[in-house]
Each structure stands twice: as structure tokens, then as C-alpha cells.
């Protein structure tokens, strides 16, 4: 942690890269879901671009987008569930 000198302002912030905790593998639980959702969203994007280029049919592009939306909502619901459970435990009276 560097000292902030008022006359110099704050140095540019470096982008934060998420780091995997040592000893964990990408196959564990939620990370895998996030990976899956990310892949589905990317695929939907590619299909939309493909439709714009005339390589992919309209129905394929729309249905890929629809599928991505559903997958994303599943992930969000699971995340909310997990967070709710965490908060429940956090609020336990000791």
C-alpha cells in the first residue's frame, strides 16, 4: 500500500484480475455453472453475429439467445439461493 500524496493525486488503478484460490479446480460447483452460462451467452452472441452475416438462420439465432437467457436466469436463481442461505447463517444468534 503506497502513501497518497495530495499534490500528486492517486495513481491510475490497475485492473483487478480475479485469481483462483490455490488448491481449487475449475470444476467446483458455482464456478462451473458460471463457466457454462458464459459459454452459452458467448454462443448466443456468435449466433446473432452469424445471423447478421447471413451464415445462421433466424430461428437458430433467436432460439440460441432464448436458451442463453434461460440459462442465465437459472444461474441467477441459484446464486440468490446460495446468498440467501449464507445470510441466514450470518444472522444466526450466538
Amino acid at each position, binding site marked *: 500500500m503506497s502513501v497518497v500524496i495530495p499534490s500528486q493525486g492517486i495513481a491510475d488503478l490497475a485492473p483487478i484480475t480475479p485469481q483462483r484460490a490455490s488448491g481449487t479446480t475449475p470444476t467446483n460447483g458455482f464456478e462451473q455453472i458460471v463457466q457454462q452460462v458464459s459459454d452459452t451467452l458467448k454462443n448466443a452472441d456468435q449466433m446473432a453475429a452469424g445471423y447478421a452475416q447471413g451464415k445462421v*438462420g433466424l*430461428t437458430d439465432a433467436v*432460439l440460441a439467445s432464448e436458451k442463453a437467457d*434461460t440459462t442465465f*436466469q*437459472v444461474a441467477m*436463481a441459484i446464486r440468490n439461493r446460495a446468498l440467501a442461505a449464507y445470510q441466514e447463517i450470518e444472522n444466526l444468534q450466538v
Partner: protein
Amino acid sequence: MGLDSIIGIANSALGAQSQRITLIAQNLANVDSINSPDGGPYQRRIPVFEPAQVGNSDGLGVKLAEVVTDQTPPRAVYDPSNPFADESGVVKEPAVNPVYEMVDMMQASRSYQANLSVVQTANAAALKTIDLLK
């Protein structure tokens, strides 16, 4: 996965009906084509569909198996001034009936909508299931 299978199957049907409408468009466009590349008047094209495996889904989707030509003899129209008329002044015009084509198009359109409804139902069911988590 169930939802994927349903949407995949419905998607194959949407594609098949689009191809059917494409052929109807072709038939209607060529209603007056008296000189086709393969000689003689244009022959009406008819799609033949067959069940087909879609991806790794549970059920069978549909695909366009082949496009056959309608063997109905061409309409004979008397028009001696036409350069394509034979020695008795008769021109052979395509045996395409626009009324049939329009009816076929309505069927294709309804079928397309029916399959869109399948997609909607599958999606609504999936979203309702997700609501269980909320």
C-alpha cells in the same frame, strides 16, 4: 436435457416450414415460366419431409428429405403469337395453381406458428420451474 430437446425439435420444424414456404414462393414466382432450364415449362416443386434425429435430443425432429417435381401435365394455352408455341399454336404453361399454393402457404404458416407455440410453452415451463428457486 428436456428443454433443449423440445426447443431443438421445434427448431427443426421451424426450419422445415421455412423451406416449405421457400418452395411455395418459388412455385408462385414461376407461375408463368414457360421455358425452364431443363426444357419445357416450369414444374411445380413439392417438399417431402421425414423424421430425423436433431442433435442428441430425445425425440425426432423433422427434415426436408427431398424436393420432388409435380408430374401433372402442363396446361395447354392457345397463343399462336408466342414464339414458344408449337406448330398448332399451343403454348405449354406450368401446371401451378396459385389457389393451391396460397392454401399450402396458409398451412405452412399455421404449422410454423404451432411450432413457435411449442417453443413458448417449453420456455414458460422452464421459467416457472426456475421460479421455484425464488
